[in-house]
């Protein structure tokens, strides 16, 4: 008899299966807004037929001057599986389009006679999804910034996200707030827009009518995560930025340098804190740590001498040894922080198609799809 994992591996085998959104047609006009393009890509992975009006400025965006088959790396990934069309094709496509993705900013498509009110009259079934910095919903700021393009960095900043990231104890400017290492605001904006498009599609199946979905990159992280609003409401002050002490849980939830490399440590509940001090060989520090943590809110420096002592001990222990001890004890969760190279070489992610190898003149690695679905597996569309 097959074990559970073997059965599931078979169940999730993607070959020969349909996609969930087969027959759904998407037209994206995103300009240089990658939040919008990510929404189109996610819908394409779920099987939608996506037509894109490319913007050469977006095609050129890359890092370190790396281009693959003439396109920058972000476009290489987010352009996958999309059919390139021209502006002149838009009118003829519109009658068949289920979802129109607009990343140009408020009023820009309207200047071309393609604003939502006009299109809704002509195509009542159309689902119009907009992604922009401050939304199309008419606010003073949406009007003030209607002509300013979107960016991920400013999205991370305006969402209150960067204010919580980085190490304020470092010398300037390393002490400044930093960014998440990926386009996190655009990833959330794209995921939100895809979710909005599908919610509207589901509603349309019941009512026959399309609608307008509006995503704002500058609020998407702070409405998805409840902490920025919730903490400020409850505490009446901003949370403190700390690379080691979690600002919500007030526990050690951190990366730390072990003897040979970084580890991630999650001591969320008391038995985990106790276990942590046991596995580093300093059980007597647990109570001291607990006392210091209760003072952190009033006096953030109260814990610093002890923190220094604790992490100096961690620094003497090899990372794998810490993991081994935590697994032996059953807690707390500790993991070696994997380098990109290690992640890319793991069979696990290849088997799951989370990271794939593609052949575009040369063999390249690329993000695959996170949509592991038994009946309608996500598609890893070819980038070239």
């Amino acid at each position, binding site marked *: 008899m097959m074990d559970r994992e073997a059965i599931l591996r078979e169940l999730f085998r993607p070959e020969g299966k349909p996609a969930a959104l087969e027959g759904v047609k998407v037209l994206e006009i995103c300009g240089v807004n990658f939040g919008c393009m990510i929404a189109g890509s996610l819908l394409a992975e779920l099987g939608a037929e996506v037509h894109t009006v490319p913007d050469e400025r977006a095609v050129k965006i890359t890092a370190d001057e790396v281009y693959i088959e003439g396109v*920058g790396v972000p476009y290489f990934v987010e352009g996958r599986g999309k059919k390139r069309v021209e502006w002149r094709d838009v009118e003829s496509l519109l009658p068949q389009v289920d979802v129109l993705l607009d990343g140009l900013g408020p009023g820009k498509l309207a200047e071309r006679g393609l604003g939502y009110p006009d299109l809704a009259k002509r195509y009542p079934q159309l689902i119009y999804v907009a992604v922009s910095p401050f939304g199309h919903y008419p606010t003073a700021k949406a009007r003030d910034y209607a002509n300013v393009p979107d960016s991920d960095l400013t999205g991370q900043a305006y*969402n209150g996200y960067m204010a919580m990231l980085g190490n304020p104890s470092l010398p300037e400017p390393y002490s400044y707030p*930093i960014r998440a290492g990926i386009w*996190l605001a655009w990833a959330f904006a794209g995921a939100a*827009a895809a979710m909005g498009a599908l919610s509207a599609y589901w509603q349309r199946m019941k009512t026959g009518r399309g609608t307008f979905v509006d995503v704002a990159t500058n609020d998407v992280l702070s409405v998805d995560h409840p902490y920025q609003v919730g903490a400020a409401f409850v505490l009446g002050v901003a949370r403190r930025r700390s690379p080691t002490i979690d600002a919500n849980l007030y526990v050690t939830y951190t990366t730390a340098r072990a003897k040979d490399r970084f580890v991630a440590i999650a001591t969320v509940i008391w038995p985990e804190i106790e276990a942590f001090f046991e596995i580093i060989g300093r059980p007597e520090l647990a109570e001291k740590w607990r006392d210091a943590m209760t003072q952190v809110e009033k006096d953030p420096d109260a814990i610093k001498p002890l923190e220094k002592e604790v992490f100096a001990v961690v620094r003497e222990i090899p990372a794998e040894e810490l993991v081994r001890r935590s697994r032996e004890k059953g807690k707390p969760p500790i993991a070696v922080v994997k380098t990109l190279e290690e992640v890319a070489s793991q069979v696990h992610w290849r*088997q799951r198609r*989370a990271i794939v190898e593609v052949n575009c003149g040369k063999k390249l690695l690329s993000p695959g799809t996170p949509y592991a679905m038994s009946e309608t597996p996500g598609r890893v569309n070819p980038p070239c």
Partner: protein
Amino acid sequence: MWGGKGFYKGMRIDYLYLNANKYFLGLDFRKEEGYRLLIELVKKADVFVENMEPGTLDRYGLGYLQLREVNPWLIYVSASGYGQFGPLHRLPSYDIIGQAESGIMDTTGWEEDEVDELYRLPDYPGDWLPSTMAVSAVLAALIYRERTGRGQYIDLSQAASLQRFMYHFVYMSASGRLKRSGFFDPFAPVSGVFKTRDGKYVAIAAMTEGQVKALAGEVAGLVEALGDRWRVFRVVQEWASGKMLEEVLEAGRRLKVPIQPVMTDIDVLRDPWRWERGSVVRINDRLYGEIVVPGPLFKMAGADIGVRWVARPVGYHNKLVLKKWLGYSPEEADGLVQRDVLGYWDGQPGNMPPPGWKAEEDPVYQGERDEV
């Protein structure tokens, strides 16, 4: 949570926020009668979501392979760190472990001669981004089921959801590793976080040639510095440090270059734009009273979406759910409580009704009416 201030009228504040618009049932499925009751609910469910360690629910007869026999229409979601199959699938996870295993921590921090540090991403994106992706997968599965009548199993991995947005893998194989980025967006020729004359942080990202050119009209020495991110940083810092935050923001609007303040929690809460848009909303919850909550992830014309009620204590909706889903009377529900099949909150701090609450005066708790 939040230094002991994390309770709002007896409820843990994160629990209160994370569980909006849900119905709370306290059911012991380890008991035979509880298991049968849960199966009756599963027969009527569209979607089943679980986040136990892989294989745990199978041991209770509640895995996908078992429940699809009961309800072939069911869309079943398992959320875990590594997914349900693959060599690493048995390992447990938290957000931080998913982050460590995905590689995303190796992109976040500094990798310079002076500073070599990496950090977790705050506020648990290893939970929030995957769950946002999962909702799309569920909606797609519902659309597919409507057409075909077939349910399915969605296997969500926290780490894989983060990896989806890591272009670093392409660079690694095309040219070489992208260094951890600090406050620079590596895809923008001009970017970073800068300090203004009034001591505020501001983020600037000129993504295109046109934006760089516009900024270069204001920032002396920018053209000459292009290609060297620290040199670019110094000339833009020189420019920004001579201006108040509002002047830098005004330049962004005028030049059509993305420039925004690095906001704190309080800035977010007080931002007039958010109140005008509905990204921050004051609601009057039937049980917990006035509370400020984040607005919906997107706005949808003609649809009233967002928080209608915040979390309830465990078991609070026992009678209502059993009545709505299975037609049980309050007396039948009470019988299940007496037999320890159904239960309620146990007085644990953080999972309580508000002070002064009276069960007999609460029609929703009694199953007599719905929340809204």
